[in-house]
C-alpha cells in the first residue's frame, strides 16, 4: 500500500489540484455556481458555452432522465460573449484565489463567429478556452456541427488559435463521426493544444403514451451512464491519434469511472451529468474515490494509470 496519493494534475502547464473538471453547460452559468463547484472539490471548472449574442434556448422540456442517462436540448442558452466576459472575469478572480483553473467555452455559427467570441472571452483571461464545435442541439440552425468534418474543425481551430492570443485552446469533439481520431489529428495539426472528448451523443426519447418526442426540440444530446463506453472508446481513439492532453468526458459517475477514463488516455476528466445523480458535491467525491482507487491499486499518482490500456 502506498501511503500518499498525489492527485495533482499537470495540464498544459496548469496545475489542477485534482483531475476532475466540471464539464461545460452544467451549472457553469454564474460566477457563484462556478466558485461553488470549485469549493465542492472540482480541480478546474468549465463555464457554459457562450456564443456571439444572447440566446434564450429551447422551450421546456429541455432535459429528462430516460433511465440510463440524461437527454438534454437546453439550446445553448447564454447571455452572449459581451455579458459572458464580465461573468468570467468575476469567476476567474475568485477561482484564482482557490487555485482552481477556469476554462471558458465558446461556440459560433461560422468560423468568424468562433474567432470573435474567443477574442472577447480572452479578455477575462481564462486558463483555457474550450471550443465547442460539437453541440448537437443547434443543428437545425447551424447545420451539421463543425466537429463532423476535418476541414471545418481545422478551420475553426486556426481562427480561434489566432484570436485567443496565447491562451491555450481545447477542441471539444463529437462522438457521431466515423473516425474521431482523424478529426483530432486534423485539429491538432491546425494548432489545438488539447482535445475534449466527448460532447453528448445525439438521440431522441419518445413518450409512447404522448406519441411524441419528450424534448421540445425533439432531438437532444445523450449524457450520463449510457455515454461512458462511447466516451472511453473515443478517448482511446484520440489518444492513439494525437499527443496532446485530453479532457476525457462522458458518463463519469464515480472515481472508478474516472480511473477508466485516465486508463483510456485522458489527462483530466470532465464530469457533468453526475451532478444530477449525486449533487454538486460529486465533484469532490469523485476525486476522493479516485484517490482511494489509486491507493488500493498501489499507485502514487495519476501517471501510474494514465494510458494503461495501451501498455
Amino acid at each position, binding site marked *: 500500500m502506498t501511503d500518499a496519493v498525489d492527485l495533482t494534475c499537470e495540464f498544459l502547464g496548469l496545475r489542477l489540484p485534482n483531475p476532475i473538471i466540471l464539464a461545460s453547460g452544467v451549472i457553469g452559468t454564474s460566477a457563484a455556481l462556478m466558485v461553488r463547484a470549485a469549493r465542492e472539490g472540482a480541480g478546474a471548472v468549465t463555464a457554459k458555452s457562450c456564443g456571439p449574442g444572447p440566446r434564450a434556448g429551447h422551450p421546456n422540456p429541455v*432535459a429528462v432522465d430516460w433511465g440510463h442517462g440524461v437527454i438534454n436540448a437546453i439550446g445553448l442558452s447564454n447571455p452572449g460573449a459581451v455579458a459572458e466576459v464580465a461573468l468570467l472575469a468575476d469567476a476567474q478572480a475568485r477561482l484564482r484565489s482557490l487555485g482552481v483553473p477556469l476554462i471558458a467555452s465558446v461556440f459560433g455559427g461560422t468560423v468568424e463567429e468562433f474567432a470573435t467570441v474567443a477574442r472577447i472571452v480572452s479578455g477575462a483571461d481564462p486558463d483555457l478556452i474550450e471550443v465547442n464545435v460539437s453541440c448537437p442541439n443547434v443543428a437545425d440552425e447551424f447545420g451539421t456541427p463543425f466537429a463532423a468534418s476535418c476541414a471545418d474543425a481545422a478551420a475553426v481551430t486556426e481562427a480561434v488559435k489566432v484570436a485567443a492570443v496565447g491562451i491555450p485552446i481545447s477542441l471539444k469533439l463529437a462522438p457521431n463521426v466515423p473516425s474521431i481520431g482523424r478529426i483530432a489529428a486534423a485539429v491538432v495539426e491546425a494548432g489545438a493544444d488539447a482535445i475534449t472528448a466527448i460532447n453528448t451523443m445525439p438521440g431522441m426519447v419518445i413518450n409512447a*403514451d404522448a406519441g411524441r418526442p419528450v424534448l421540445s426540440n425533439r432531438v437532444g444530446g445523450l449524457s450520463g451512464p449510457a455515454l461512458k463506453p462511447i466516451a472511453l472508446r473515443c478517448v482511446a481513439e484520440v489518444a492513439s491519434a494525437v499527443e496532446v492532453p485530453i479532457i476525457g468526458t462522458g458518463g463519469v459517475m464515480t472515481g472508478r469511472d474516472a480511473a477508466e477514463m485516465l486508463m483510456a488516455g485522458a489527462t483530466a476528466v470532465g464530469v457533468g451529468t453526475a451532478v444530477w445523480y449525486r449533487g454538486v458535491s460529486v465533484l469532490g467525491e469523485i476525486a476522493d474515490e479516485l484517490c482511494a482507487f489509486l491507493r488500493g491499486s498501489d499507485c502514487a499518482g495519476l501517471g501510474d494509470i494514465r494510458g494503461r490500456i495501451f501498455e
Partner: protein
Amino acid sequence: MHRTYTVTEIRDENYRTKTLVLDRALIAKPGQFAMVWLPGVDERPFSIAAASPLTLTVVAVGPFSERLHQLGEGERLWVRGPLGQPFELPAQPSGKRLVMVGGGYGVAPLRFLAREALTANAAVEVCIGARTAADVLLAERLVMDGAVVRVMTEDGSRGGRGLVTAALEAAVLEARPASVYACGPVPMLEAVESRCLAHGLPYQLSWEARMRCGMGLCGTCEVHGRRREGWLACSDGPVSVS
C-alpha cells in the same frame, strides 16, 4: 422520465384555483415538486399538494396554468418527479408547535406538510396571506384537517388587514414555535426570514424560480442572494433549511 397520469377529480378552490386529483400515487414528501408536461404545450414545476393519489393545486395565472384548468376528468397529463428537497418535520413532532406561512399556491404544499404534522400529533398553525378574500386558498380545508388558521388580506376583506407576516408575528408572540415553514412569493419569504432571524427561530422556506431542467444541471433556477450563494432552487431546494 415522465409518467402518464389521468385526472380523476377536479375541485374548485377559488375563482382562479383548481385542484386536480390524479389516478395514482407519486411517492414524495411535502415540499417536493414535479415537472408537469402537456405535450406540445410546455412543462412547468408544481408543488405536490398530496402524494397518494398525486394531487396538484393550480392557480391560473398564464397560458400553462390555464391549459391545466381546461383539462377535464379522464384527460391525461405527464409528470416527472418527485424533484427537490422536502420540508423536514422535527425529529419528534408530537406536541411541538409548528407555524406555517403561505402566500398564493404556497398554501398547497403547506397543507400536505400540515397533514403529515397533524398525523404525527404536532400542533399546526397556518397563516394564509392573500390580496383579497376571494384569493384565500385552502383555509376551510386546513381547519377541517385540524390546523389553527389565521388569514390576512391586503384589503382586510377577510381576516386581518395587512401582510401575512403580521399573522406570523402574532402566532410567534402567542407561543414560541418549534419551527416556522413558509412557501410563497420571494418578497414574502424574505420578510418571513427576517422575522425568524429577529426571533432566533429555526425556519424552512420554499423558494420559487423559473425552472427548466429541474435537475440541478442548467443553472436557470439559481436563487441569488446574500444568504444563498450559488444555490439552485430545483436541486438544493426548493426548501432551504436554516
